């Protein structure tokens, strides 16, 4: 998934497993930026009696590079302390948790947040922004947490300088057909074209449906993040773009005592990190994944080769014979994927997409970070879940919003849809612009199954799924000699009716990238004529997921 259990070692350490990172200009407070780092993948809402929580022994951090050197200039550190207020009971709560300080609530967690600049050393500063900030309980059920949204609201804390903080359980916002993708990249809407499949095309199935995560959401004034301390106003100003990544660290030594206690010693060592979604998961080979998690972005040049010749790009023409001939030729040419290197490791420099850039610094340092040009206002009306390739410059890979369909975006990019950005003579395969997971009905659909829980305001990810209502799906696996038709109809997948091989190969469906630059520029120019923060009505109306008749 985005970065859920993406490497062998961190898969065994869920509380430190960074699943998703988001960074976007807050749509309801456009003078601020919202930073979100999620942990604890695939939480089962009915996970009692010891419900999910942050690790007291984990150092969680969100880093900002505001000068492009690949090193953090500002770091927000988060530590947690857990208290059993009623140590004599086995219960998480002994009655209804009616408020954030309810005496019925036994196991409680508190957050401390510290802002560190320039490493906190001789030339840096370290400022504690808040301490003992209550986290909300997990969403247990109607008897224990009947007014969960109220509890969560009480856990939104206002910090000095106009910051907001929320640390606690949220509904998983990431959507992906994980079951299909890791079944030899068998995208259900296209599985009729897969070399190994005899199954008809089918809608996608959202793997993390009805799961929860632990979310750290911080909203800060944009001027707090820039190198010059000023609010970003110009897209072309280098100060407007920041790099964002999150990490989790553990102390180097961990000793299990005979009485059940654990003694941690030593400095914190990075065990998880995440910038761009799917980077470690899909691009880095399994033998280097744990190593990747230990490394700082400033050293990511060592992974550039994995980006320049991505394995999945090599596999697509093999897995879908005849569907990606141009990609196959590009692969055979041995040319490095300069488009992916820019998107994922340096940012897109000026001059590639007219009116847009999100390169950090001078682009000389290759570092896996989300790059957000904060001068680009949020798209308030009809944002595209395909972000920049959906002609919405406010979305991934310009930062990442909670509803961005990053899996589809990156699959299309890997399939060659973005290569014309660096080589205008290249024509993407029609299929590259048609790839979909089948979880959304169109570019502007932000209600993929389970994503209906998005909130229009901080902390943006929705109320977590409750344990009592945790869905129970005991559908047996199909027996021999039966053909599975795909999972439940989990979205309005436009390709549910199947994909016409001849139309895809023949080029009826337009690949978006060839027209990307001009279209994006037009949209941005149109938006820039409206007042800051005002809604843009020029959102993409294209629908790359238009059903194709069988």
């Amino acid at each position: 998934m985005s970065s859920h259990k993406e490497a062998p070692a961190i898969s065994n350490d869920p509380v430190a497993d960074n699943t998703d990172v988001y960074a976007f200009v807050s749509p309801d407070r456009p003078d601020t930026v919202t930073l979100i780092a999620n942990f604890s993948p695939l939480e089962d809402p009915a996970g009692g009696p010891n419900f999910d929580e942050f690790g007291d022994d984990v150092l969680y951090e969100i880093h900002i590079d505001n000068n492009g050197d690949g090193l953090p200039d500002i770091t927000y550190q988060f530590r947690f302390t857990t208290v059993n207020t009623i140590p004599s009971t086995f219960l998480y709560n002994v009655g209804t948790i009616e408020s954030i300080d309810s005496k019925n609530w036994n196991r409680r967690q508190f957050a401390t947040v510290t802002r560190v600049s320039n490493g906190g050393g001789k030339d840096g500063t370290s400022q504690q922004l808040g301490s003992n900030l209550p986290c909300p309980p997990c969403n247990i059920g109607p008897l224990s947490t009947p007014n969960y949204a109220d509890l969560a609201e009480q856990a939104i804390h206002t910090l000095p300088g106009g910051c907001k903080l929320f640390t606690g359980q949220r509904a998983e916002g990431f959507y992906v057909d994980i079951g299909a993708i890791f079944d030899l990249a068998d995208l259900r809407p296209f599985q009729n074209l897969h070399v190994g499949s005899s199954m008809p095309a089918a809608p996608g199935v959202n793997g993390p449906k009805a799961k929860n995560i632990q979310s750290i959401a911080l909203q800060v004034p944009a001027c707090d993040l820039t190198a010059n301390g000023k609010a970003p106003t110009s897209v072309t100003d280098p100060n407007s773009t920041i790099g964002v990544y999150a990490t989790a660290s553990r102390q180097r030594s961990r000793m299990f005592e005979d009485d059940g206690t654990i003694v941690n010693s030593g400095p914190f060592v990075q065990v998880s990190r995440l910038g761009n979604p799917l980077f470690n998961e899909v691009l880095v080979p399994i033998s280097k994944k744990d190593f990747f998690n230990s490394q700082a972005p400033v050293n990511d040049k060592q992974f550039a080769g994995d980006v320049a010749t991505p394995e999945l790009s090599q596999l697509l023409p093999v897995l879908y014979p005849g569907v990606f001939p141009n990609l196959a030729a590009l692969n055979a040419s041995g040319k490095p994927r300069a488009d992916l290197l820019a998107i994922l490791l340096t940012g897109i420099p000026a001059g590639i997409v007219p009116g847009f850039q999100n390169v950090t610094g001078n682009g000389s340092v290759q570092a896996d970070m989300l790059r957000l040009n904060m001068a680009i206002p949020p798209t308030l009306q009809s944002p595209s879940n395909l972000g920049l390739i959906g002609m919405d410059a406010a979305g991934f890979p310009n930062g990442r919003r909670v509803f961005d369909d990053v899996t589809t975006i990156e699959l299309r990019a890997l399939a060659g849809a973005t290569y014309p950005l660096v080589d205008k003579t290249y024509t993407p395969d029609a299929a590259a612009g048609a790839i979909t997971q089948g979880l959304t009905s169109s570019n502007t659909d932000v209600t993929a199954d389970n994503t209906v829980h998005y909130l229009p305001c901080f902390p943006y990810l929705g109320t977590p799924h409750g344990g009592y209502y945790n869905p129970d799906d005991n559908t047996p696996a199909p027996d021999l000699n039966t053909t599975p038709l795909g999972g439940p109809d989990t979205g309005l997948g436009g390709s549910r009716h199947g994909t016409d091989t001849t139309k895809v190969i023949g080029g009826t469906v337009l690949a978006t990238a060839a027209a990307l630059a001009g279209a994006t520029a037009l949209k941005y120019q149109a938006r820039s004529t409206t007042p800051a923060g005002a809604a843009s009505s020029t959102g993409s109306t294209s629908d790359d997921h238009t059903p194709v008749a069988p």
Partner: protein
Amino acid sequence: MAEHSSRRNFLRHASIGTAVAGATVLAPIALGRNAASAQNRTPAATSGSVHQGPLVAYVKNAHTGEIAVMAGEREIVHRDPQLAAQLGRIAATSKS
């Protein structure tokens, strides 16, 4: 046998880092080795206060004598080939 037991106790305390015992056992040994390899030793190993909380001594590289001493959120890399070798001999003995 008693010697084995004693060495095991030392190893357990020094490497598992059971609080005070670990520190007090490790410190005299380090001090005892001072004269032989002073040039390889950090000043903290020969004088100053003794850490009273849990600590872990991790021989990272027996050949170079690199020993990481971890206490709280700190790590001090101490270089002492002879101490590392002695700990290595203790570890080998504890296998029996």
